[in-house]
């Protein structure tokens, strides 16, 4: 079951940028691309815990600010030779508002 929560306005995130949402399981990074797509992934890089929301956003990818691992925002998978992935979360935009699916983080909380 999806559980959509209204997080913020799309304009609260700069284009090619990100902001975080604090949850009980750590920060989720919400990204806005140059062409106004929105993605949500775990904010923490699996390599050395760099905050992905502070990375440079290019196309539908983000580069970790600490050691330049590049993650595909659509899948959470790393690109290139680095091996790893981060969790992705459901997110969509309706009438300029960003809605985040918090069901996954809730179920993980129970587990």
């Amino acid at each position, binding site marked *: 079951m999806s559980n959509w929560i209204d997080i913020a306005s799309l304009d609260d995130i700069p284009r090619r940028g990100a902001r975080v949402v604090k949850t009980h399981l750590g920060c989720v990074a919400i990204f806005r691309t140059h062409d106004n797509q929105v993605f949500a992934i775990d904010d923490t890089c699996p390599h*050395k815990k760099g905050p992905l929301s502070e990375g440079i956003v290019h196309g*539908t990818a983000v580069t970790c600010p600490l050691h330049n691992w590049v993650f595909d925002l659509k899948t959470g998978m790393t690109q290139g030779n680095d091996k790893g992935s981060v969790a992705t979360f459901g997110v969509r935009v309706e009438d300029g508002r960003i809605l*985040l699916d918090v069901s996954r983080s809730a179920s993980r909380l129970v587990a």
Partner: protein
Amino acid sequence: MASGRMLEDLFDINRDAFDVTLFGAEPHGNYNRIMLSPVLAGDKTFDEIVTHDVDWYREHGVNCRFGESVVKIDRKKKQVISEGGMTHYDKLVIATGSASFMIPVPGNDLPGVIGFRDLNDVHKMFAASDKPNSKAVIIGGGLLGLEAAAALNAQGMKVTVLHLMGHLMERQLDPAAGYLLQKELERRGINVVCKAHTKAILGHEHVDAVLMENGTTHGADIVVMAAGIRPETRIATEAALRVERGIVVDDAMVTTDPDILALGECVEHDGTVYGLVAPLFDMAKVLARTLVDETAKFVAPSVSTKLKVTGVDLFSVGELAEGDDREEIVFRDPGRGIYKRLILQDDRIVGTVMYGDTTDSSWFFSKIKANEDISEIRDTLIFGPAFQGGEPLDPLAAVAALPDDAEICGCNGICKSTITNAITGGAHDLAAIKATTKASASCGNCSGLVEQVLAVSLGDDFVVPAAQSICGCTDFTHEDVRRIIKSQQLKSMPAVMQECGWKTSCGCHVCRPALNYYMIAEWPLEYQDDAQSRLVNERNHANIQKDGTYSVLPRMWGGMTTPDELRAIADAADKYNVPAVKVTGGQRIDLLGVKKEDLPNMWADLNAAGMVSGHAYAKGLRTVKTCVGTDFCRFGTQDSTGLGIKLEKMLWGSWTPHKVKLAVSGCPRNCAEATCKDVGIICVDSGFEVSVAGAAGMELKETQPLAKAATEEEAIELTIAFVQLYREHARYLDRPHRWVAKVGLDWVIARVVDDIVERAALCERFEISQSVYRNDPWAEQSTPEFEQRKWSPLADLTLEAAE
């Protein structure tokens, strides 16, 4: 327009099904509203855009009541009430269209503020353009606004377009195509302002200017509102039909009253209001069939857009956003100003935007509509139907496209034609070009470009030595791109990416910070720093630590501090529970382990004590280390502390290719360790020894002597001129010692020391840049606006009760 089309469709099915009465507020019949722009531009006359004239209506037995508004619908009695009385209906069709959306600012009702929806508006614009030197301001850089702008410009008016968003026609175009369009309109003399926030429309009896939020004004004899449409729904609202943004209709175009139908720009279908012509025609077809009791269903179509401006080829359709499982194919030809982008999903084209060459647009559009599998022709798809199996792209196209007067070698002022002439004269390699033209004979940064000019001119006879491009997004080197930015006067990132043929739509983490720096260095007054193209430390004005916390380091001018400053630092460390306080090698105090959300508050506290950012995170001026000099030291020969403070106050805030550190020692004992800095000054009895290009990091390098200055002023000038030369020429992320090793110290001395005019010019250009950048980012970013938009989390779900 919608009603005319619907009647055509109705009469095609059954000529005698209804007796039709047609009411219209305008005193004439149906005309093609989307062709108003060509009428305004003088390309067409009104008669040419009439779709249904009086004769047509007479032939089809339509009772026309033009110039007569319907004021009320009586649903119970099934009557409409107009100025001429009551008229009974069995079925009523509402096609009231839309009005221009008047942006809600003071003065929007002044005479001279007009919309752009009907012929009456066009007449008003014609009247205004008759006056000599008249000025028009268009609010809205969408389809309609730009058509009006081009038309009024063609009529001889001085036109300014104010557009709220970052690029023109942002709903149909991506930034690259928006850039090309803006460039073309500006070439025609139209002034285009994006990110333009209108504050008010000024004037007493009549409009005379538009005032922006930033305080600038644009003179105007007329203001054309083209910022969107407002469906005309009043009559439906009063009749208690369901109205949201438009009159709500179902798939059969029926409103909430089964005997009342509606179509056109006044309706809302499935949450969408349409302002383009193609869907209106589809609605007409559906509505006509519904009227004769046939089943029909309106399906939201793929809507294509073509800008009706003579000489501008632009086309856009479908989905332009990247997305899950979507891929893109980008084609750029900088020489001919062409940009094409296809968006693919599951081996099908789902959207395209084309600028400069739209001859293949219908071919692509047909593939979108047919949902055709293109996997077989994917490799050559972008070249269109004529080029299936064509040649791959020429990587030298961008250099071939440079005009003859484009400056290739900045040091010696050599333009492209001088080099091509030398090639024609027999100079067939880099050394020969250097010998005959001096191009690339000085700093050598342009040698890559010279080689590409050779390759373009000589074809296969010349093999370009492989040079390292900036990144996978481009084939150009750093030096090439810098030269093109300068010679082609490129002042935005989309401009650079287009003119240099970038292979990605918005670059990557390698090229974007470099481009951002090159633009800041080249166009300090025109270019807006792009925070999203900065690495984390510079974006957040603090150094990120390995645990995601930051360090805060206030500036201590020349390494001097006071008890009050130290108290403020201690208070801040206590208040924000700073886990570590460190004295740095740059003679300052670092507060380590600060949480991101505490940064602005801490900065505000330090600002209040008179301190500013130390830029310890910046590729810019870091520190000026000093010894105590003649003030206290018995060996000091000059006021080294004073000189250090002066230098730091001149240089702070400047952005450079990599970090820059300075030191001033008061005597050759060199307590400030000046001889391993980017610029080191050693004071002696007779003056100041200025040396440059030292390093104490991964490489250890002693500085090399630049010059000896007799006065403090001269030492400052030499330092600034050196830093500015470094800013203008070095590759992003090259420290000064690496740059000097490439260009040679002699080349630097010739400009900074020997050539007094050039030295002064360098200092002047540095000062122009500093007029923008010599300020404290902490003060700017600790305001409530930044707190809300940047520093705090977007949302905090931990505050909600856990279930």
